[in-house]
């Protein structure tokens, strides 16, 4: 393969999905070619991003600025460890979800598949763009692309419910986009730049305390994609989307972009010291803590599997925000680690939910009695994911939660430790019944209700393989090996400045 | 104006017959004399057209249309505008781009610059006069004609 100049790599990484989107439209009438393009693009994107990793790990920041927008802001990319981590997560999961969605979409004979793949590619473009961008304005551009391109995916069903969900989705996210724009403009007006700087850029300005706090609130409102409470209701509503969409976008790309933005703001715009000085960390952490617990309580009440997963996502995202808000190195380590880890675990869970839907048509947990016997691989993978969510070994969720716990200790806050533990306990409360029902539940009742004379068996191979891989990775991450050590290197780089 | 079948008024008809040539002659005078005294292409054109209007009022619409058909109207109004806009272009052409648009002095009607300028203006006045005459008349036709062929008024 031809060697790409280093500064062009971010562009190429974004070029892959962009080109793929165009080709998908061109090959709209030829499914095999169309999906081949998707796969090829996802693979090449991942390899490009991976090739940047080795350089970034050695401490180099890959920068490529294209053109200045206004003085002090250029449209351009700056790949640092933190961004790369998110980009790696998104692009690697794109590969798996692509494979999975081929199976899913074909099995369910969904309509408008070209639109689906097209918007999917654009959404990845948005997510990776958010990850790699070097300043707030560039990030905003990709952030909005992400919002718009996922709307057709959410409303994919085109049923009344789906349209309503899509409307809600847009209403929340574009409103928040407006807040974000306002925040960015004011940031620029005070700091004359919006570049991400590990020490923060606002700390150097002489703005009043109240201005900075207001601005922070604007930022938080701007990152409504993080689905914190009380602005969360778009996420469960958006679960009407096809499962791969829920999986990638509502567990990984979209919500993670929101969380990513919050972390960026806290660590790179405000800076840890300024946050501590303003007392914003406590504020944010309390917010996140409340969301963690309340969302878990909501999750318990859900019978629809995907909705339960959605509430779980809301809760888990707040772990990340929570970890950052602790403003301690360990907390941030935990938060950053939780981004890829949660991505892998949650996607496993969603893919399992999709497989169940395809194989048996079941959506509700109460109907899944004994399903583990007919779909053993899927349900094993599900169990791994659930373990991780609860922070139990051997899944990787344990690692990140461990660091979060250390973070609370470091921050000298027993209250927050208690919150963390209670929330983990609640995770167990809503995840383990599923596992229990699947393996030990009333098999007769479950199968009689819904199988309609069909023999229940595993979903198609193209669906089972990706979910097994993600489950496998969820375990691998919790043991020392080259991949994990690279991750840790990246995290160490990200928090050291 | 009168309907086709309405009775004819001898006095009006006679007055019109006598007046119209004088009106038109006067109009021509006004057009030509525009540069040095009151009047000019526009006023002359209006006066000329008012001759037609008088004709229509005194006699009838169809007769007026016969005297001044639509084709004549089209050609006259365009020719007038061509003269008006074209003369200006000629100035540029004859001076090979040295003179500005409408700088009539450069058009070689005669050998004198000032005379050329005056002549050019007369031509322009004539062009305006023809156009205005045609357009005012055609607007009046359009407004007065009762056929269902719907046309919007030309704008001068």
């Amino acid at each position, binding site marked *: 393969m031809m060697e790409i100049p280093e500064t062009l790599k971010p562009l190429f990484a974004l070029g892959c999905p962009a080109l793929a989107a165009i080709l998908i439209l061109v090959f709209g009438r030829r499914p095999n070619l169309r999906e081949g393009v998707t796969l090829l693009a996802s693979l090449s994107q991942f390899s490009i991003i991976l090739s940047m990793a080795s350089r970034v790990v050695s401490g180099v920041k890959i920068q490529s600025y*294209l*053109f*200045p*927008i*206004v*003085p002090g802001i250029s*449209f351009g990319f700056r790949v640092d460890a933190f961004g790369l981590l998110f980009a790696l997560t998104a692009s690697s999961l794109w590969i798996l979800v692509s494979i999975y969605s081929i199976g899913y979409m074909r099995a369910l*004979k969904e*309509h408008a598949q070209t639109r689906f793949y097209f918007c999917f590619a654009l959404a990845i473009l948005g997510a990776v763009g958010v990850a790699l961008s070097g300043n707030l304005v560039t990030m*905003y*551009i990709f952030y*909005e*692309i992400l919002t*718009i391109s996922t709307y*057709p995916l959410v*409303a994919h069903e*085109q*049923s009344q419910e*789906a*349209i309503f969900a*899509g*409307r809600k989705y*847009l209403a929340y996210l*574009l*409103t928040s986009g*407006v*807040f974000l*724009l*306002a925040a960015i*403009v*004011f940031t*620029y*007006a005070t700091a004359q730049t919006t570049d991400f700087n590990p020490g923060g850029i606002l700390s150097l300005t002489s703005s009043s305390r109240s201005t900075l706090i207001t601005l922070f609130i604007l930022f938080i409102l701007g990152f409504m994609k993080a689905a914190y409470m009380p602005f969360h209701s778009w996420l469960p509503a958006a679960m009407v989307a096809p499962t791969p969409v829920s999986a990638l976008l509502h567990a990984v790309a979209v919500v993670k972009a929101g969380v990513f933005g919050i972390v960026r703001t806290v660590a790179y715009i405000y800076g840890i010291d300024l946050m501590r000085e303003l007392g914003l960390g406590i504020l944010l952490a309390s917010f996140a803590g409340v969301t963690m617990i309340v969302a878990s309580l909501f999750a318990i009440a859900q019978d629809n599997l995907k909705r339960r997963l959605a509430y779980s996502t809301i809760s888990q995202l707040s772990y990340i925000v929570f970890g950052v808000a602790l403003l301690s190195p360990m907390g941030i380590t935990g938060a950053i680690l939780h981004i890829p880890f949660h991505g892998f675990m949650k996607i496993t869970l969603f893919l399992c939910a999709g497989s169940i839907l395809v194989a048996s048509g079941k959506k509700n947990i109460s109907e899944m009695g004994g399903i583990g016997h007919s779909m053993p691989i899927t349900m094993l993978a599900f169990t791994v994911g659930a373990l991780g969510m609860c922070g139990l070994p051997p899944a990787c969720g344990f690692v990140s939660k461990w660091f979060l716990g250390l973070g609370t200790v470091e921050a000298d806050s027993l209250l927050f430790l208690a919150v963390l533990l209670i929330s983990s306990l609640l995770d167990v409360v809503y995840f383990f019944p599923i596992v229990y029902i699947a393996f030990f539940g009333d098999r007769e009742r479950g199968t009689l209700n819904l199988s309609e004379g069909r023999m229940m068996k595993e979903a198609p191979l193209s669906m089972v393989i990706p979910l097994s891989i993600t489950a496998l990775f969820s375990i691998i991450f919790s043991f020392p090996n080259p991949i994990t050590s690279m991750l840790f290197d990246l995290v160490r780089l990200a928090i050291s400045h | 104006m009168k309907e086709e079948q309405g009775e004819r008024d001898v006095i009006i008809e006679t007055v019109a017959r006598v007046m119209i040539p004088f009106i038109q002659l006067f109009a021509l005078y006004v057009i030509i004399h525009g540069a040095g005294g009151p009047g000019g292409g526009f006023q002359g054109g209006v006066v000329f057209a008012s001759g037609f209007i008088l004709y229509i009022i005194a006699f009838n619409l169809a007769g007026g249309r016969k005297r001044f058909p639509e*084709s004549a109207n*089209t*050609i006259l*109004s*365009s020719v007038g*505008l*061509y003269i008006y*806009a*074209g003369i*200006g*272009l000629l*100035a*540029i052409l004859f001076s090979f*781009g*040295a*003179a*500005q*648009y*409408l*700088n*009539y*002095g450069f058009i070689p009607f005669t050998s004198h610059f000032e005379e050329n300028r005056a002549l050019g203006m007369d031509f322009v006045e004539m062009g305006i006069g023809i156009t205005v005459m045609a357009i005012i008349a055609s607007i009046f036709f359009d407004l007065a004609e009762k056929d269902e062929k*719907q*046309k*919007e*008024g030309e*704008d001068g």
Partner: protein
Amino acid sequence: MLSFVEHLPVLVVVISLLSAITIFITGWINKKTAWYISTATLLSQFISSIFILHHVMTVGPIRYRLGGWVPPWGIEYVMDALNAYVLVILLFLGLVCVIYSKRNIDHELPDKGVSFYTVYQLLITGLCGITVTGDIFNMYVFIEITSLSAYALIASRGKIALKASFTYLVLGSIGACFFLLGIGFLYSVTGSLNIHDLSLLLPPLYGNRVVLAAFVFFIVGLSIKMALFPLHTWLPDAHAFAPAEISAMLSGIIIEISTYAFIRVAFSVFTARFLQSLPVFDILCWLAAAAIIIGSVLAISQTNLKRMLAYSSVANMGYIVLALGLSISARKAPWGGLNPSMMHILNHALMKGCLFLVAGAFIYKADLWEIRDFRGLGRRMPYTCAAFVIAALSMIGIPPSVGFVSKLYIILASIEAKKFFFVPVLLLSSLLNLIYFWRVIETMYMKRVEGKDSAHTSHELHLQKEEIPLGMLAPIWVLASLCVIMGILWLANIPIPLLNQINSTFGLGGIR
């Protein structure tokens, strides 16, 4: 010796006039020629305008004395960066619309092709005239030529359009009379009509009440012409019921050329120094803010696509005027001065042009006016609808489209001017835009065709593609793609030197 380019400002106007006559004559012989002549003329005009722009950018302003008379007595045509820029925009959209009209006019105005193109060319003449002239009375005459042609073109659609056109005519005439009165007042104190001359004569008279009155008359007169908020009442009907390309021209060019006239009067005849001494621009800002909000809210309440777009135009004129109003206070910043308003003049022309042409395409193909009838249109006319989506997203302000750029610049300008109130107004308007445009997009793509709710696979087969002909699709797509391309170019600052040149003409603008 004048170079060829220096003749172009006047030739642009004259060619257009001559072509109007030629269309009239040849159309009388053969109706088919009208479109070809019109297109060829506009193409040559467009190319000339690019030459002019290049000349102005590289060499400097062109001053052209008509008939060789010296300025205070003779009419002078002046091309500086401002009007060269506006001229290019105007002729570009004019060209696009005339290409589009080839098929559309056969459908919307059968048998009226010749008179349509004649009057259209007169309209272009008037617009070019307003742009190139350096004489304020001459500007009045061209404004009236433009308006008269516009009245006739709107009325050509018949029925409701007649009423709309009449209302426009009455209001437009009043506006023009006010403009004329303003000219009279200025003339009575200075004795000059040449814009450059006036700008030299006026400064000692800035305290004079007659001068102030003249300024107010100019503002009121032009506000009617450019449909600034409380005076916008003629606009919605006129825009909604005109033929598609005329709607596009009205919304994209005609009201914006009135804005150009406003800028010319405010900054060239009067100067930034005069404007600073008055609170007029502050008042304009508030009016514009009201226009933005109320225009958007009224747009939401519309069920007819073209009316909705018309109200959106009211809101967008608000953007331009707001940017203008901020231009004095934010004069020093790189995004201050006239930059945001100039940007939005181009951007709005692109977006609204595209949207109105798309609305025309729906009427052309399926006779659809109401938004609720658009179900399943996304499948029937995929390319047209895609263009609509791009332009609509641009109106909402999704990056990297043009709408985002102008919004960003106006926000930056209002921060620079320390008028923070307008930031939430702009942001809110963005959301309001979202509501009314998204409703259309949703209906086109997401709502299922009635009676086919059960199986979505079957309605895919049922609906055949019914695209509009390429001659209409191409202009739409040119505009739609420019919405994105220009957005990127703006972000990359490529056209900014031009805007800076405009600003420096008026002593505005900043450091870059």
